[in-house]
């Protein structure tokens, strides 16, 4: 399993108490019993962990799937790896 998916699954099961058996790439966050507050908190936690700029609105709707979140984070991580570090 890749580290992004592994972290997301751990977060969903341990912090948000989603049933482990129901977590797969096509599962929507709304179907995992995450209400709107929990979905924004999930995006917040992922941003915190990976240091990538997810979108509070677009990435936290009820129809966002596990697979799409993994793709989004991996894409953003790849982008930030290519870009020169502008923080210095």
């Amino acid at each position: 399993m890749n580290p992004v998916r592994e972290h997301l699954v751990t977060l969903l099961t341990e912090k948000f108490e989603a049933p482990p058996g129901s977590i797969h790439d096509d599962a929507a966050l709304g179907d995992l019993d995450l209400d709107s507050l929990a979905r924004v908190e999930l995006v917040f936690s992922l941003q915190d962990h990976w240091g990538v700029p997810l979108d509070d609105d677009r990435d936290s709707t009820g129809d966002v799937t596990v697979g799409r979140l993994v793709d989004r984070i991996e894409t953003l991580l790849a982008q930030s790896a290519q870009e020169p570090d502008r923080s210095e």
Partner: protein
Amino acid sequence: MSTAHPPLAVTGIGLVTPAGHGAGPTWRGVLGAVGTAAPDPALTGLPVVLSCRVPEDSATQAGERRSWQLDRATRFALAAAREAVADAGLDPARWDGARVAVVLGSAAGGVGSYEHAAERLRTLGPAAVSPAALPAFLPNMAAGRIAIEFGTTGPVMHTATACASGATAIHTAALLLRTGACDVALAGGTDAMITPVCVSGFARMKALSRNTDPTRASRPFDADRDGFVIGEGAGFLVLERLADAASRRAAPRALLVGAGTAADAFHPVAPHPDARGLEQAVRLALAEAGAGLGDVDHINAHGTSTPLNDSAEARLIHRLFARRPPSVTSAKGVLGHTMGAAGAIEAALTVLTVQHRLVPGTAGFALPDWDTGGIDLVLDGPRRQRLRLALSTSAGFGGHNTALAFAPAGPSPD
């Protein structure tokens, strides 16, 4: 003794304190009179090193549903409320939730969550503030969470009178029961204020003990007391009208026979030197109980271990009860000062004292001073005592004072 108001039944208690999770461990800890103060790594760099923390426990920490939304104070409150409801033999799945009230006091609500969010805002910007920040820190949220868990749709509210908050909650719950606004009241206090801002602020105003000896830092009424040791926790009482408790065959642990509240209207943080608000609260509670000063056998004092509080409180007790001095104890020698939880925790301990006719000793105390030498402080180990009426007194910043009067549930021992 005739009563001016019908007494209320205390049918359940629940406690989460530095002495342990539950009323049993807390009662044993307080009877053992061994302080819970310990060096606290979280206070590194702050002006004091000791605190009285609730021990970590998987049952109240990790196992909580949606724990990411809950401040530490809310977790304590939920655990104490669950124990109190179970102790009362009540089943929230079967009660009429519209007739159940939740009144919960705390001095600072989810202040730890607030400080965490503020720190992230300052260092990382607004995107780093959790969407759970407000539901975690708003002070009413612990009461709201309890209502959600137990399906209580009656009066649900928060009381804030600083370190008297838990006692004010019990008084308010008694008023709700007496007006018929509810049939069952869950009344308690909670706080988790061992935080950088709270500890620094208390230290800056010289309210905290600078003593680094864990066995001597919290020493209510002692001549060398130099401030309180900050603690945390929660306490709950289940209150019902006597007839309602009797109709479901619930045996009360004790009776709440009176409650009184009065303000000093004197100084933002210093107690009135003659404790005039506390005196008025005591007199009101006794009037409600239909009792006189001579009926008071025991006082579970506020006794914070600060120079000013303990002097004013001891002088008041000596002045009011000189003819027939009641025994006095302070649980803060063992538990530290649990802030807004203290009034509710100590009310529950007073219930147990009345029920078991056993007065705990005051940990940390060695020698009295001029003011505190005038009271009958229980020192070494528990004292067996015939108790007709016991008071629990609380006071808080802002000049808030509350006195609660408890009596045995069984036939009077005299």
